[in-house]
């Protein structure tokens, strides 16, 4: 249920390949580990990632729509999205136009998401609300409802590019939006908290919340993801500890 991510201006094919290898070989001394759910990169690195992950079943997600600010025209965002999809991305992580949202242009925000959804074709659309830039929980709820009604497959808290990222309360508000949509329509929307969830214990708090609000149908990578690269190593460390009874130093867990 973890997505590995590299989203830096200095990303290179070399870096992306290393991350993709890690995604498939989390810990060689530990047998039968599941792989991560997806590797998330900028559109320019999609091709590299797709090749590196061929046959692994791991999805390639691309951030698009003028990530992370979203401050560009719809046409640019459509082109950005289409480019990523054409390169082979199976998941698109878009950002909503927070400026438009905060100035009350909800219809614009909605239509933009719907347009991007169309541009995605078969690729799954995750809509990033960037909750750290929204004002209140009411805003988070409203943005969630807009994203869901415009066609989001997943709603996601944050870009990871600003300090205020996922929190338990914000995630709860978004889970409520997903629950209410399901109650009304029977359609299941996925949830991805991202940023700041760096250890297993905190991740468990999130999972408990998902289980208690949405039940076990959501306890799968199809409907729930953590956007937290450093979480993977902490989970590995806990797994090894459970087996051996002792904590290994972080030096035994690869950094890619």
């Amino acid at each position, binding site marked *: 249920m973890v997505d590995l991510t590299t989203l830096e201006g200095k990303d290179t094919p070399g870096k992306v390949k290393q991350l993709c290898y890690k995604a498939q070989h989390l810990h060689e001394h530990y047998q039968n580990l599941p792989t991560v759910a997806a590797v998330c990169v900028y559109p320019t690195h999609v091709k590299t990632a797709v090749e590196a992950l061929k046959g692994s079943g791991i999805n390639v997600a691309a951030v698009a729509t003028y990530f992370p600010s979203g401050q560009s025209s719809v046409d640019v965002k459509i082109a950005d999205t289409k480019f990523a999809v054409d390169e082979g991305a199976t998941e698109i992580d878009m950002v909503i136009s927070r400026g438009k949202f905060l100035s009350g242009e909800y219809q614009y925000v909605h239509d933009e998401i719907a347009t991007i959804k169309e541009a995605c074709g078969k690729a799954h659309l995750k809509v990033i609300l960037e909750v750290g830039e929204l004002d209140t929980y009411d805003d988070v709820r409203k943005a969630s409802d807009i994203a869901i009604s415009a066609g989001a497959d997943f709603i996601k808290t944050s870009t990871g590019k600003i300090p205020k990222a996922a929190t338990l309360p914000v995630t709860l508000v978004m889970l*409520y939006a997903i*629950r209410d949509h*399901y*109650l009304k*329509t*029977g359609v299941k929307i996925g949830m991805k908290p991202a940023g700041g969830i760096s250890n297993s214990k905190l991740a468990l708090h999130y*999972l408990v919340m998902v*289980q*208690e609000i*949405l*039940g*076990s*149908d959501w*306890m799968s990578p199809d409907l729930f993801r953590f956007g937290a690269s450093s979480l993977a190593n902490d989970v590995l460390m806990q797994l090894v500890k459970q087996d051996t009874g002792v904590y290994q130093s972080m030096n035994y867990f690869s950094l890619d």
Partner: protein
Amino acid sequence: MAKKQSNEFDFVSGWTYEPAPESSDHIQLKKQYDLFINGSFSRPAAGSYFDSVNPATDEVLSSIAQANSTDVDSAVTSARRAFKKWSTLPGKERAKYLFRLARMIQERAREFAVIETLDGGKPIRESRDIDIPLAAQHFFYYAGWTDKLSEAFPKGAEPLGVVGQIIPWNFPLLMASWKLAPALAAGNTVVLKPAETTSLTALKLAELIQECGFPEGVVNIVTGDGSTGAAIVDHPDINKIAFTGSTEVGKLIQRSTAGTAKKLTLELGGKAAHIICRDAAIDQAVEGIVNGIFFNQGHVCCAGSRLFVQESVAEEVIQKLKLRMDTLIVGDPMDKNTDVGAINSQAQLKTIRHFLDLGKKEGALIYQPERALPKKGNWCAPTLFLETSQSHRIVQEEIFGPVLTVQTFRSVDEVITKANNTPYGLSAGVWTQKGAKIFELTQKLKAGVVWANTYNQFDAASPFGGYKESGFGREGGLHGLKEYLK
């Protein structure tokens, strides 16, 4: 819960919680407890004892002394002897004892929480996070007033004398602290009787009081059944009776103190209206409803037991409430995951079952989550009664269990009329995001406490008490202190 429709949630087949029981290894319970009179433990005059039972397992925890009128008389005599010295002790000196007691409760919080849960059946999370910390807070709070009585009450702040205090079984230690802290701070001496089924934490408190070095006789704790309580109420040398319990017993007490010089405060039953307006934050309101009625298995005099939902949002609220109830964990009170613990006694379980049968007979629609209850012990599933009206007896009478009646309403005026249409008036709750509506409702609801967009919030600084047949007098805050002063 089997999947019935396509858009149902599966809360059962996936991840479940491993048991996470709190340990009881560290507690110290004696096999037998005597009466705490004049600073030491002494055998009851008649030599009789009764068992205190863990309502979750039916296991006997300890044997408790049954005090008769002779014992009560020696307790009152000892309190009277202690009164002169205690009441003339400078306030700052009395404060030291109270502060010390408050700190010692905090130091022993874990032990108190475990005993409270074993003896009363409430979830360990509640005794650990609410009962015990609040009990300590009450001693801290009133300790702070002890040397400021003349500033707080410039017209005079004389203590009353010997106070008889009779407390209920739903919050044993907390109720003891609500009663003891203001009485002692004001300079009174006390004879306190805990409830028959839950005497243990009061007796542990007696041990702390001894350890604290309180002067002998300032606090006397006599255990026993209703006859012990009657002996306190009828004792001629008591200046005030403070009682928390049922309205039925409250009326008896008021009858017997009528025509005497005894002051009286009563904190009695309730049937609180919990009102959900259409402009409420529904998800939060649902949490509030759950807290309002299932907190402490509904053994709460101020429980939000009469739910009123505005008709336009009723369907949504009830749907979400049912979903939330499906995830409540009913079971071992010592387990840290437990939401709803054991019913306090077999007698109370019988009462609740009587009302469950009555509700069905009256034609109300019952809803209970389909989760198995433990086989041993006293249990009641969280229950909703839908499609009820003010004319249903389950809506009129206090059940004192995890049973919520649900009515719908059309307008604010209508809900105010219906909310006040009860002999009780202890508490009420209002959920709306409109500030003006909060003010209108809180002014017009005849209840001692009205919570807005929250429920069951308690604080030592905030007065608590009822209107009408929910009693009179206040506990907590300066109001609570005043009740113990001339």
